[in-house]
């Protein structure tokens, strides 16, 4: 009788161990599953933030001081004029620490644009108020100008980089 009781207790113990093992196993699986899901959600949030910043940066191309007559297009001639203007400052209403336009294609000579080398240059730096502006958000735009020798408008593929309060809002 005593032996039967011990055997029964052993069986109950065995069952309890198996149940504990199952619970631990399922817990681990659930932990892995939720950590993967959380990671995905974090990545999605980062992408959304990046896209929001890209949309805000592209919005800059719609400013009358820079716009060409198509959506997402920037007038390069206006941009270079604005860079050299002392009367108009984009920073008064854009709240940016950094704003730069880069020509990506067709490939241009590397270097900052000034009146002397324009349009054989690749970057127009419009705002650079601080060295510590962090990572600039960027957006693709079309960069257009009038090419007098061909008597037509010529548009290049470019990017606008911006950083500051106006972008991280």
């Amino acid at each position, binding site marked *: 009788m005593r032996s039967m009781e011990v055997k029964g207790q052993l069986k109950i113990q065995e069952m309890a161990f198996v149940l504990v093992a199952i619970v631990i196993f399922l817990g681990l699986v659930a932990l892995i599953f939720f950590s993967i899901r959380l990671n*995905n959600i974090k990545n999605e949030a980062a992408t959304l933030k990046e896209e929001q910043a*890209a949309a805000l940066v*592209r919005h800059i191309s719609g400013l009358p001081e820079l716009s060409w007559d198509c959506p*997402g297009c920037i007038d390069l001639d206006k941009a270079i004029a604005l860079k050299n203007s002392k009367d108009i400052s984009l920073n008064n209403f854009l709240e940016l620490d950094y704003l730069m336009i880069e020509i990506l294609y067709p490939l241009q000579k590397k270097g900052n644009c000034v009146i002397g080398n324009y349009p054989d240059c690749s970057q127009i730096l419009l705002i650079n108020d601080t060295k510590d502006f962090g990572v600039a958000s960027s*957006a693709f735009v*079309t960069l257009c100008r009038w090419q007098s020798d061909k008597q*037509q*408008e010529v548009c290049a*593929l470019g990017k606008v980089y911006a950083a500051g309060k106006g972008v991280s809002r």
Partner: protein
Amino acid sequence: MKLFNSNKAQEEMVGFAILVVVVAVVGLIFLAISLRSSSSNEISSLLVQQFSESFITSTSECNLGTWPSLASFATVFDSCYNNPSSKCDSGKSSCSYLNESIPQIINSVWKIAPESAFNGATYKVIFKDRVSGDEKEYLSKSWGNCTGDSMGGESIIPDSRKRGNIIFRVIICLNK
């Protein structure tokens, strides 16, 4: 008595085996779900969409003999579909000009290389009929290693013959 004990032991073994199988099945289901969510998928990306929109409005190096002398990429896409025999002043057909220049531009802009953040790309140019909704792919190319996630975007060019739209779709592959 011995036979009775042996039967009981066998029953326990069967019970344990069933338990192991059930737990393994549950584990496999979880694994399959997690793997499916982490396997390669294409995310719609605003950045790639902006790229494709800016691309079609930019000026190509193809002179189709019409004014303005250098046509926009949108015009060359249209010319390639509606008049495949049309040629640029370089002597290349508009379609082969596109097939050569699009990968060059994508590689240059996105810096596609085996060790960079983007290691492959695909583009497709599709004509979508306005009435039937049928899609006909007339230009496409894939290159690089595209086994991981990718981001895609597209832009729409109205067909000059007003029969539908030309869709320029770009997919950029992310390096794992």
